[in-house]
């Protein structure tokens, strides 16, 4: 059987704190292919960033991956030694962080960042060659090569995020994880950065995992969407299916609560309540306290993810007649 480019199987991540264990990612599975975009949406605390970080083994202390597999081209990543994992990061899987203001080294010139990244993984490359490829990469993301001699504070927020993207693709990775890449940026810059990521994805055939809280962005930009809530995957489907035929009450609620500038006299509907505290999670379904369709079973029995056909997965008791995965 052909391997998926990246496959995650029932991944569990826990933060063990003094107050108790927080199950930040609970039994999440998905796979992604070449040149595909997967959008992961969720509110703060839904576990989307922890999920992203666990793919490259960077879950911060006291977090721990307690169960599950991450397979890159069929190769298990979670069993790798530190050095081996380090070689994977950057060359195979790359991470773009949310805040471009703090992810560059303020005392290093832009060019030096590239030299460091390239020469760490490919020590045989000379400094000048590394700078040469930096020029090309900066050109790809739309920054003039003179800017290589600037320090990060001399660049605007959008340009810094472009530099981060250029650094991420420097070693031609097959998977790029972009964690809220545009949250700190203005709309016009956001549009340019997202266009750039799309263009690079097509040009280099990378798989792109786009993590964001903004459902509009993932609907517009991704092939598949994964909706996360309180550490669980609630719904997974192609973006058109999520838009035209959302199944989970949470997804439906989200779609009704985001303003759309193309609609006239839109009526927004709020989802009542607020996300649960992960230390005292509700029993049964995580969403029932906010769900208008909740019935007895939702309060008592945990829900498993069901395949409702055509690759549309949903975690909800309302869908009984689905086949278990």
């Amino acid at each position, binding site marked *: 059987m052909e391997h998926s480019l990246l496959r995650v199987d029932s991944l569990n991540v826990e933060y063990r704190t003094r107050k108790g264990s927080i199950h930040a990612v609970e039994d999440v599975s998905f796979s992604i292919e070449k040149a595909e975009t997967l959008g992961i949406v969720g509110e703060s605390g839904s576990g989307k960033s922890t999920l992203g970080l666990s793919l490259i083994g960077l879950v911060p202390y006291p977090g721990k991956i307690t169960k599950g597999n991450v397979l890159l081209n069929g190769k298990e990543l979670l069993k790798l030694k530190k050095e081996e994992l380090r070689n994977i990061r950057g060359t195979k899987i790359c991470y773009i962080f949310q805040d471009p203001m703090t992810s560059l080294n303020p005392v290093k010139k832009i060019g030096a960042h590239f030299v460091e990244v390239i020469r760490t993984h490919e020590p045989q490359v000379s400094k000048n060659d590394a700078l040469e490829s930096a020029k090309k990469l900066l050109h790809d993301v739309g920054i003039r090569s003179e800017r290589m001699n600037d320090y990060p504070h001399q660049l605007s927020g959008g340009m810094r995020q472009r530099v981060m993207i250029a650094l991420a693709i420097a070693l031609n990775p097959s998977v790029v994880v972009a964690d809220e890449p545009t949250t700190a940026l203005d709309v016009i810059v956001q549009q340019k950065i997202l266009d750039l990521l799309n263009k690079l994805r097509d040009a280099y055939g990378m798989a792109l995992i786009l993590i964001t809280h903004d459902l509009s*962005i993932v609907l517009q930009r991704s092939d598949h969407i994964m909706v996360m809530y309180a550490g669980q995957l609630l719904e997974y489907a192609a973006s*058109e299916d999520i838009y035209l035929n959302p199944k989970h009450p949470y997804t439906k609620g989200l779609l009704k609560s985001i303003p759309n500038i193309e609609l006239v006299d839109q009526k927004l509907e709020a989802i009542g309540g*607020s996300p649960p505290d992960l230390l005292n999670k509700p029993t049964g379904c995580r969403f029932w306290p906010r769900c208008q369709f909740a019935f007895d079973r939702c309060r008592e029995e945990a829900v498993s993810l069901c395949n409702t056909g055509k690759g549309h997965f949903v975690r909800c008791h309302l869908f009984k007649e689905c086949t278990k995965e």
Partner: protein
Amino acid sequence: MSQVEILRVEHLKKYFPVEKSFLEKALTRARHFVNAVDDVSFSVTRGEIFTLAGESGCGKTTTGKLVVRLISPTSGRIFFDGTDTTMVNSETLRILRRKMQIIFQDPYASLNPRMKIGDAVGHPLEIHGIAYHDEKRKKVLEILNRVGLSPSDKFVDLYPHQISGGQRQRVAMARALILQPEFVVADEPVSMIDVSLRTAIIDLMLGLRKDFGLTYLFVTHDLAVAKYISDRIAIMYLGKIVELGDKKTMFSNPLHPYTKALLSAIPVPIPERQRKKTELRGDVPSAIDVPSGCRFRTRCNCVNKFCEETEPELLPVSPSHYVACNQCS
């Protein structure tokens, strides 16, 4: 709706001086200023929601702060309910402030972590000598209930760290509304709140407007939210209003190239939707070194020779639609 003006701003300017290093002070005389707000005029009618929108650094928050006189303008006048607030003494201003309040963006920073919710919300009553002790408590409970923090006797004794971000923003609204103001500046009230809670906060704001007869000056970068709640919208760029009009006109018939670009950049929650794009070149120029003539010309797609020399004025194209562009007017 009666067309009574509650706020009028005329030629408002705010320049912030740029700090110089020791060496620069010794060597040069030149002083530099950030032109945060540069000649802004508009008026707000009683009962409406007027939105100032634009990218970060365009001066929208500074304008909001100037309007409630948290900072003093460099020049220009602000008439609130007929009184020029730039000319009055601090005692008159204190009394005027009962009628105008502000809600800040970050509910994590705007509440004192050592003050219980009840004390924070009731504090304005004491400052203005309106109610103390039992009467204060009664009013606090009432307003907390109104903003959806019930049972309110439970929330009164909590500290800010014990409640969520959405609840904090409700507390900030309760604190602003306890004096029964007529005018509220809401500075990005939902931008730091989780998506699933945003709509509830927006609906609360709209409900409160009805109940208290409020007028809002809404400051935001999110035009999709602005479209949902406002009556009129002003788009700002580098300290100036470039286009102003009622919501319908602004979204159906935007005239300024900057407004067009902003609108086309907003993500629409529809898959595979190819929208007509108006792309802009480059970045926003520095507010210290503003381009001559039209300040948008360095990024505009349709500049002509006038743009470099003449600074366009905000002129009406229809009774309710104003544009500052050499090409459009």
